[in-house]
């Protein structure tokens, strides 16, 4: 099996794990974002009310379009990242001695060009399902797609395309550069020789902390601006 095929499958498995763990938080996020101020007291309050309203699986509403999009999304994301590397990165951009984080960030940003066409329609359906009060959309994915399509065809389905692209471009720039930076740092801490493959533990930590750190950095930056 070629290494690209393995990347594709492993990316899909990783993405599915991310969705299964992350989706309840995402539902809470979308409901808080789109609620009028004062509707929910906080995360726990929102979770409780959502489940009281729609049963124990209410937090997993809208999960199917996300899961269905994850495998091709991950493939396209790494494909785009690969193209971005060729466009922006010097040969030595990933070496420990000479890591070029800005070039890695640009390569990461390029991945959004390839993910947004797949992700934007999925995001549109997902947000509608997560916040649906009528019960008409939260049932099946196909029903939700038909509803959106009937409303305005392609333009309705791709509503929010530019916003999705802007969000993912900035997010990927931070994500890939922070991940590569932390992977190197954790590798240093474990006393690995430069050039060795980092251990699973440092990959896990870099993945977890990477996302966390970039969220903090990004929001500090935005508050300052």
């Amino acid at each position, binding site marked *: 099996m070629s290494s690209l095929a393995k990347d594709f499958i492993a990316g899909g498995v*990783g993405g599915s*794990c*991310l969705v299964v*763990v992350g989706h309840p938080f995402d539902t809470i996020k979308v409901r808080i974002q789109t609620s009028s101020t004062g509707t929910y007291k906080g995360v726990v309050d929102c979770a409780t009310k959502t489940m009281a309203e729609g049963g124990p699986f209410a937090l997993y509403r809208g999960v199917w379009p996300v899961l269905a999009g994850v495998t091709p999304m*991950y493939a396209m994301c790494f494909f785009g990242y690969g193209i971005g590397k060729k466009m922006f990165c010097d040969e030595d951009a990933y070496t420990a001695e000479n890591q070029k984080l800005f070039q890695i960030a640009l390569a990461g940003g390029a991945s959004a060009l390839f993910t947004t066409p797949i992700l934007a329609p999925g995001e549109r359906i997902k947000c509608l399902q997560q916040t649906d009060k009528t019960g008409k959309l939260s049932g099946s994915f196909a029903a939700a797609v038909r509803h959106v399509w009937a409303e305005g065809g392609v333009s309705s389905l791709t509503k929010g395309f530019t916003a999705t692209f802007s969000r993912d471009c900035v997010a990927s720039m931070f994500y890939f550069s922070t991940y590569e930076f932390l992977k190197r740092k954790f590798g240093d801490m474990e006393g690995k020789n430069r050039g060795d493959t980092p251990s699973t533990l440092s990959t896990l930590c870099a993945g977890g902390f990477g*996302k966390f750190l970039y969220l903090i950095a990004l929001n500090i930056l935005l508050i300052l601006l």
Partner: protein
Amino acid sequence: MANWAGCLPIDTLKSRYQIAPMGQYTGTVLGSKSVLKEIIQKEGLKSLYKGATPVFLRAFPANAACFFGMETAYSFLNKVM
């Protein structure tokens, strides 16, 4: 990366825009009837950061799970094939 979750203010604008009926807004940022304009006028800029707590709570477990799944799949595939 299905995460999603990214740049929170843009994400809030996106979520609002995507659940609104067609024609309610001219866009997320631009135009006289944009989501951004309405939020600033009616709720204040702080509203753009709604949903920050679940984003932070989600970040670590979701991404650790992602890399765990990826590593497990890699080692399985390398063993089998």
